[in-house]
């Protein structure tokens, strides 16, 4: 087994609110191994992006980590001060956001933003930083001639590649990619994902890939975690999980993803009835039970946890 880079234990994030607290992340635990790509999948509001924000320490106030621990190798990183956090952000963990159109400062050239990041984290001279920046652009197939171009002069796909170059510029161990292709044209989505995958393999960086798209999960990730209403529903090896989903929610998600390979357009797509509950109206017990076709009596009262197996569901756990 390769070493564990990131370890998240019983993470709970809360947002104080006029009528109490919202809990967008509740008791989530998982590990990320060196070099692996782990997918986080779920509907919007399930807590995928919030988990990413928690790891990199950028939860918007008034939200905060109430319980749990986040370990980056030997270092605990969930309670760091701002300057300690800045030694990790970008340097050891970096992030790629959803919308490349707004991720880059429109008033500064891409080269400038690359050099700035490199100089912040690596002990190199300005010339050396520029060389590294150019090398980074070449890696993501951007013409180094365009070092002095402004973000608006690039297409969306190219900008996302610039963002990836920025994320990789200080050789981080972990990249959190939050819906990195959702805002892009379908035709360039696969291209950008492939690039991200290839570069991370080459650099030996691990990736947390946040997405709502089961297709992306299937094609890109080694392992996958399914989130529902801020809780971990199921986690496991991607191939196994796709072939043999256990949690009724995972089954629903997979069944509702169109599968083009079989050319089987006649069967209607499965729909999970109802909608994910709002965070201020979570049901007791299992958060999924009102929508679950196989709900048992105690699903409404007792909350299931992931124990020795890979799924948080009473169908597979003893009460």
């Amino acid at each position: 087994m390769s070493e564990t880079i990131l370890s998240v234990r019983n993470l709970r994030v809360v947002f104080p609110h006029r009528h109490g607290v919202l809990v967008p992340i509740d008791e989530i635990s998982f590990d990320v191994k060196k070099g692996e790509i782990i997918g986080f999948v779920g509907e919007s509001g399930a807590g995928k992006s919030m988990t990413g924000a928690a790891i990199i320490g950028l939860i918007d106030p008034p939200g905060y980590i109430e319980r749990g621990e986040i370990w980056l190798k030997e270092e605990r990183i969930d309670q760091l001060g701002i300057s300690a956090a800045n030694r990790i952000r970008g340097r050891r963990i970096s992030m790629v956001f959803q919308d490349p159109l707004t991720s880059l400062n429109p008033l500064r050239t891409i080269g400038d933003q690359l050099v700035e990041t490199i100089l912040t984290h690596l002990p190199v001279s300005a010339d050396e930083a520029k060389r590294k920046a150019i090398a980074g652009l070449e890696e993501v197939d951007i013409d180094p001639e365009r070092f002095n171009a402004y973000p608006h002069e690039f297409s969306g796909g190219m900008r996302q590649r610039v963002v990836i170059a920025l994320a990789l510029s200080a050789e981080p161990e972990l990249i959190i990619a939050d819906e990195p292709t959702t805002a892009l044209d379908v035709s360039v989505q696969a291209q950008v994902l492939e690039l991200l995958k290839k570069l991370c393999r080459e650099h030996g960086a691990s990736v947390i890939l946040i997405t709502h798209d089961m297709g992306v999960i299937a094609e890109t990730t080694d392992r996958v975690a399914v989130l529902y209403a801020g809780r971990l529903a199921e986690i496991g090896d991607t191939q196994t999980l796709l072939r043999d989903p256990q949690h009724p929610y995972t089954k629903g998600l997979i069944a509702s993803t169109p599968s083009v390979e079989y050319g089987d357009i006649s069967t209607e797509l499965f729909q999970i009835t109802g909608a994910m509950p709002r965070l201020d109206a979570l049901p007791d017990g299992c958060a999924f039970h009102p929508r679950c076709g196989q709900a048992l009596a105690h699903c409404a009262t007792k909350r299931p946890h992931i124990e020795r197996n890979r799924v948080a569901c009473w169908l597979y756990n003893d009460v």
Partner: protein
Amino acid sequence: MLLIILRRLGQSVFVLFLVAFVSFMMFRYVGNPVDNLLGQEATVEQREALIEALGLNDPLHTQYLGFVTRALQFDFGNSYRGAQPVADMILERLPATLELALVSALFAMLFGVIAGVYTAIFRNGFSAHLIMSTSLIGVSLPTFLIGVLLIWLFAVELGWLPSFGRGETVQIGFWSTSLLTVSGLKSMVLPAITLGLYQMTLIMRLVRAEMLEILRQDFIRFARARGLPERVVYFGHALKNTLVPVITVAGLQLGSIVAFAIITETVFQWPGVGLMFINAVFFVDIPVMSAYLLLVGTLFVVINLIVDLLYLAIDPRIRDSQLKRQST
């Protein structure tokens, strides 16, 4: 690029001609130049001769052209009061106004931006709230009242600073400056604060609002996620983007500073063109009013032009979108 600048210049020249036209109409039709120059007892022959000499019988466009030509040569006729050439009066008083306006503008910009950035960064802090509430009173306080209250406090009660005039001046060529003597600098303090305070609150509120808006943007999140220090995030990334819209407003405010100088100059008996203008309004000294309008109008148009060009220089997006519009 050159085309954009040229087109923008064209617009400015058009507005200038418009301003000149208003000044001309005022000069020509408000009040009666002949009565004012000769007095009521002049004979008919004298009047006819003067009307001929002034060209008042010529067609309107000829008169207008003559007016513009003379204005371009800095000839605005003589003041009705004292019969002094208006151009000389302006030249004598302009340095006082420009120095005052410049110092106030610098004061307003400097403190406005600092206070705006401060209140945006520490938006929930006590002092930020205090600054914001005080600024609301500042906006409601008319300029002249600020001046009067400052005089009362610092000149009358505390006796620290002079309450009127420019203090000692030093003559450099035609320019008389009060920035090089101690008494001149002391005299500058109260008028400059009076004139700059309102603009300062405006700039502060604008900077704060813009900065808060920018700080919510994705690229700021991304800058933080890259581990850039807060200082770099605020000043390297947020501030520059904040300043783009601020420059426009601040530039236009510079124009208003020159106009509001009328009020400050009256309160502090500051011997500038504003005081000259208000006296002209009071005594219906039309040539002086018309020349002042022309002067301030030109200043406004030039400032607007500079602001626009500056905008082009700072924001590459605007530059390119305008270029694209040109080429299609």
